[in-house]
């Protein structure tokens, strides 16, 4: 079916380099007015760069950018324009990282930069009224007079979108908008976007989640290695075909199939785990979140009444108790910011709990520091690999011994030869690319960076318990597959794994038991068999789930 609407955006032959890095080479994009267009591709494929060229943040080295002003009418060549010009022409971008002033109210944030004034004063009442009206019209529900610091992540994102719309955007670019949203919030966002498109607005959505692509988009552009490889109508394709185009080869799409609620597959996963592990799953299944039924001697990790004080709430983690058996994956789902980060940091020894007890293989480690816990058999794939997991300016080789430095030294001297050997071996075994251990970690793609962390944490020490926080965030499809495979193997080898993920599909694909964390507590704990997106969703938003009795 040909595109019936006239094009609102046309990028052709765009090339953009940053020093030696080529982000875009001969990339193109065409979007018709009034459609929702998904721009998909692996991390580092150049999606964000291309959209920043469109929004005027970067000037392209080569190629042309054409836009129909206000998303309608004839295309005009706007190559190399500025963000201000882009905004004036009705093109607005919502970034992955929010750019809001936390101490200001929603309305103040929205009007920031073009404040309505009454004399020298900000006309707050009028700003709030206008924001409220816009909020009603678009369905982006958020209280105009609340300070942004009090908002949830989903609400903050709505403010970001309102900000762009308030400036008159008719072409809306969203960069990975669902990364921080719970399933119900995602559905709300889809409704809003469909409404905008129905009113003649044009939406470009950057994502790498294929289920979203299928759900929301009219047309799809696939990018790989900086180039546009395919442009298809959503109706004419399948997730498998898109994935193939993204990666350039066939990929097992465990996630998306699982996300669609394929219970058969889930059962298969569980059966496989059970067959490998014997009693572990069987034991875990009736646990229902209370650890009392678990044999304490057999639990690799046992947490009792763990409480961590916090900045946003009195207790970020509020008396959480659970245990994980060898060969079991406990998935912790939930909207981000409900204490998962603090829970894992407390388990790893990075944050000090105010109450509670942590036992590794029966031994109390609550008083131990990070290194002592690690030496006692705790590995940790941290949530934020850029901040915690890697020293970005260091070489791959050095990063592969971070936290293991005492195992790679003789006295005070670092054993450079062993560090090199270790690096060469792991780069090969984990297929870290480029395969040069002297490269700084900063130069690697997200997936390869994560492989460094995983290689280190899963081979560097003889661990019993693995904490895996958001292990596939910002990682491309190919690497996701690899990482999931590693986690399953670790389970098969009898490791106890705590998996925290904002991606419910990931939890459902891997976990044997699923806990939902809400406001510092486990709102529910279900065996995998009883868990589904529909069932867990209400717990994630607090709509369901009695607080577990203390």
């Amino acid at each position, binding site marked *: 079916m040909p595109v019936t609407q006239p094009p609102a955006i046309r990028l052709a032959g765009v090339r953009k380099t940053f020093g*030696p890095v080529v982000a875009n080479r001969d990339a193109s994009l065409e979007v018709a007015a009034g459609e929702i267009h998904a721009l998909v591709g692996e991390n580092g494929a150049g999606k964000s760069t291309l959209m920043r060229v469109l929004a005027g943040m970067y000037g392209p080295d080569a190629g042309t950018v054409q836009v129909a002003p206000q998303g309608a009418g004839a295309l005009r060549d706007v190559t190399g324009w500025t963000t201000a010009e882009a905004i004036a022409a009705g093109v607005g971008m919502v970034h992955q990282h929010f750019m809001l002033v936390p101490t200001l109210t929603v309305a103040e944030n929205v009007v920031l930069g073009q404040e309505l004034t009454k004399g020298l004063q900000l006309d707050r009442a009028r700003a709030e009224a206008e924001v409220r009206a816009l909020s009603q019209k678009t369905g982006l529900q958020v209280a105009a007079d609340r300070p942004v610091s009090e908002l949830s992540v989903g609400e903050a994102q709505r403010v970001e979108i309102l900000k762009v719309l308030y400036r008159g955007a008719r072409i809306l670019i969203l960069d990975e908008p669902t990364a921080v949203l719970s399933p119900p919030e995602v559905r709300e966002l889809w409704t809003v976007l469909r409404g905008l498109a129905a009113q003649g607005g044009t939406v470009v959505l950057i994502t790498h989640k294929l289920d979203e692509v299928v759900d929301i988009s009219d047309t799809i552009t696939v990018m790989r290695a900086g180039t546009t490889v395919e442009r298809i109508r959503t109706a004419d394709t399948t997730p498998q075909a898109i994935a193939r185009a993204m990666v350039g080869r066939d990929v097992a799409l465990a996630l998306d199939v699982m996300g669609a609620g394929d219970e058969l597959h889930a059962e298969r996963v569980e059966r496989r785990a059970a067959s490998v592990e014997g009693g572990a799953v069987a034991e875990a299944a009736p646990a229902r979140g209370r650890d009392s039924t678990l044999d304490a001697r057999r639990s690799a990790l046992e947490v009792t009444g763990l409480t961590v004080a916090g900045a946003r709430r009195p207790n970020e983690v509020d008396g959480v108790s659970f245990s994980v058996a060898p060969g079991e994956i406990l998935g912790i789902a939930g909207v981000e910011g409900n204490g998962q980060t603090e829970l894992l940091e407390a388990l790893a020894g990075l944050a000090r709990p105010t109450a509670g007890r942590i036992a590794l293989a029966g031994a109390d480690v609550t008083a131990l520091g990070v290194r002592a816990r690690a030496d006692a058999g705790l590995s940790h794939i941290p949530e934020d690999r850029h901040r915690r997991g890697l*020293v970005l300016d260091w070489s791959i080789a050095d990063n592969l011994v971070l936290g293991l430095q005492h195992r790679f030294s003789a006295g005070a001297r670092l054993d450079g030869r062993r560090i090199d050997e270790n690096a060469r071996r792991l780069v090969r075994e984990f297929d870290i690319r480029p*395969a040069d251990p002297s490269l700084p970690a900063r130069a690697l793609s997200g997936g390869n960076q994560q492989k460094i962390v995983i290689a280190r944490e899963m081979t560097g020490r003889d661990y019993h318990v693995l904490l895996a926080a958001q292990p596939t965030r910002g990682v491309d499809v190919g690497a996701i597959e690899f990482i999931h495979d590693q986690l399953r193997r670790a389970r098969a080898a009898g490791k106890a794994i705590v998996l925290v993920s904002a991606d419910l599909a990931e939890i459902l694909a891997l976990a044997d038991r699923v806990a939902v964390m809400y406001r510092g507590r486990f709102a529910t704990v279900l065996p995998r068999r009883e868990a589904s997106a529909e069932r867990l969703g209400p717990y994630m938003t607090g709509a369901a789930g009695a607080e577990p009795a203390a």
Partner: protein
Amino acid sequence: MSDATAGATAAERADRRRTLLEEAVLPPLVALAIALVVGDLLILTFGQSPGAVFAMLLEGTWANAYGFGQVLYKATSLTFTGLAFAIGARAGLFNIGAESQLAAGGFAAAVAGLALGGAPAILAVPVCIAAAAVGGGAVGAVPGVLKARFGASEVIVTIMLNFVVLALLNYVIAAHLHVPETLHTPEIAAGVPRLADLSDAFRGSAANAILLLALAAAAAAWWYLFRTRPGFELRAVGLQPDAAEYGGVDVGRVWVRAMALSGAVAGLGGLNYVLGYKHYYEEGFAAGSGFLGVAVALVGRNHPLGIVIAALLFATLSQGGLAVNALVPKQMVEVLQAVVILAVVTSVPEVRRVLRAALRPAAKPAKAAA
């Protein structure tokens, strides 16, 4: 396929090495070139000929043994203070206290030397060296402890300690230890050979065997930072404290250790004057070399080798400033130094990062918030 990959990697590697080299060498060159041109213009505003002034500058420094000896002498102090700053900076700390740490080191060495009286050099010299390291290290450790314990910004603490320590030392000298009609202590017996003892050409120049100690300190600092586990942990803390903490490093302890080490190296710098040159502690002998050390480290990109080179550059400018003083005010040389610093600071990304880190509000100690 694998061959092709390997080939590309090798080519890329060579490419990257070249890029690294260019990044390391070019910005300082640009800085130097800018400084030269600014210097020319300044000289012209004083109605002098740039050619004559620069010729005189070279003549007074590298072109004769005495001048060169003076350059070496000054470079020795600057190497110590530059290393001191770099050790702190590698741990993410901005140590502006080298001035007082150096003075404290020199003072401790002088006091040790006085206490030892006429003890043989084989005993006295090592004791004085140890005293200098301890003296400087003690002053350096204070801001480290305050940062680790209470989150006090080391920038502020080291600045304030400069005043406190220098005033205290001056008081002790003026009230108790000075030789009448002077601002210095009595001479100590201990000392190390001067360069002039080797060749008469260096007669009068202050350069001395502490120069070798400076080179040894640079080599040791390099080994410590890049080849040992504590150095590995120190650099991790400096680049990403959160990652270091995750890697099982006690960030607060590393801060204290880095500051103590930084202070100790600065303290050794005091030996250049006390053990190598005048054999007494004199009020004000540091003469700003502690502060200039910051510039030396920034221009030398916090790398021991770079610091030795930068120290020679700044020492040349400083000694050259005296040599051309008859033609142009010495402030001209200070302006030149400032231009070099500014040009380097703006052109080297990692220097910008160090500065940003220092200007960022004081980081909280690792586990203060429980």
